[in-house]
């Protein structure tokens, strides 16, 4: 299956982003992109697991949409993932999430998917 054909939106040093992800609110030099703060990150984890999970599975092992585990995505450029999340994939059920996500959100989600997406906090009793 053809995967993420969208051209890269921007180039970025993955290592720098991984480091900055620990420091919420910091603007990445050069492209005015902020890393979502901790509260937003928690909301994004929930959104991906629950809402993206409708098609991709809560465990991201796939459904109508493809698997989004780190193993399944290995080798995909982060920019292509980000572009798919933000802009959707015309001709497929993958919707553009730009109405609900900023580009920074989409980038953070793409980064997390590539490294193994965080689990939801444990359910309340």
């Amino acid at each position, binding site marked *: 299956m053809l995967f993420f054909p969208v051209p890269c939106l921007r180039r970025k040093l993955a290592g720098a982003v991984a480091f900055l992800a620990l420091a919420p609110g910091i603007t990445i030099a050069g492209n005015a992109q902020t890393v979502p703060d901790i509260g937003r990150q928690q909301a994004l984890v929930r*959104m991906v697991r629950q809402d993206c999970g409708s098609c991709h*599975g*809560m465990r991201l*092992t796939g*459904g109508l949409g493809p698997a989004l585990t780190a193993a399944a995505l290995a080798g995909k450029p982060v920019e292509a993932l980000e572009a798919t999340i933000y802009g959707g994939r015309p001709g497929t*059920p993958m919707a553009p999430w730009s109405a609900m996500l900023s580009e920074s959100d989409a980038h953070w989600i793409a980064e997390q998917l590539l490294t193994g997406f965080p689990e*939801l906090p444990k359910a309340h009793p």
Partner: protein
Amino acid sequence: MNRRHLLTTAAAAGLLASGCASTASPPQAAAPVLRGTGDLGVVVLRASGTLAIIDTSHRTLLGQVTGLGDLSHASVVFSRDTRYAFVFGRDGGLTKVDLLTQAIVGRVMQAGNSIGGAISADGRLVVAQNYTPGGIKAFDAQTLALVADVPAEYAPGKLSRVVGLVDLPGQRFAYSLFDAGEIRITDFSDLAHPHTTRIPNIGRQPYDALVTPNGRHYIAGLFGEDGLALVDLWQEPPKVRRILNGYGRGEQTLPVYKMPHLRGWAVAGRRAYLPAIGHHEVLVVDTESWQEVGRIPVAGQPVFVMAQPDGRQVWVNFAVPDYHRVQVIDTTTQQIVRTLEPGKAVLHMEFTPRGESVWISSRDANRVSVIDTHSFATQAVLEVDSPSGVFFTSRAARLGF
């Protein structure tokens, strides 16, 4: 011997069915409590792989059964004696749960990725519809032994994801091939040689389907086109025709953040109420002429459009970000008469058998609300963790459920 066996079974069932499994007092020598299953149901707790067993007469949670795997997209059918629930999990797990003893009595991992299933009219076959490997598989409802495997091959070596599986009279099942734009009907009356009828060129990307309550019409929704595919199953050979063709023509398409679901509840009287794709509308079609007779603007992308058992009202829930709402359509006026907000992330609704109440799950509010369908008053609220699908045993008696 038979009598002793029956008493033992009844005692075990009664003791366990008399209270919540986690809080039940130690078994005592008291007379067994017998109960029926006609007012039982289950709620899927998607995050924890758990099935909650509920009682719709007392609106209570009876117990929880854990260990059902990945239930992020789970559906349930019931044995025709309404004692057992067959749960189809996302991870390909098929689990048979005894509602009386609140225990798993059978479980198989039957696929890599599954979307749901159906049960034959005679109750003997449980059939799963799978994405990976694409196809359907039939199981003995007693033992869960695999009895037939029918891959959805549409080109050499290529298997389609299967959607919209429904039971038909006889040991027949209809389903749609998302990747191939095809409807198939498989007859399992000879298990060694299942016979499949192919109906090609139905339209692009069927995403789900329903069979009308009389078993005559199979309708597949199309994601890739504005329209639905209709098959008259009483016609020989069955042929496909397009209905509601071009319903969104000329309009801006809105993002579809969740695929709608179709089931037999869509039919109310002689009209069917169907979700539009990419439009915040419910489409109304006459089931005699199959012509569009109306469109009802609603609060978001419809996911479930469900008629009450009496057909008087149709209830609609929505995809994110509008999924805190439920809207109610009066089928005599085609107007929305109520907008409810029972809690964030409404995922599913289920009517009690006669339709006096509807149970609505709100995933993010961790609650299931029981609502009076006449007064819209909230009759009860059950606190459960991330509820999704709600399924009552009355489904066992209905074709296409």
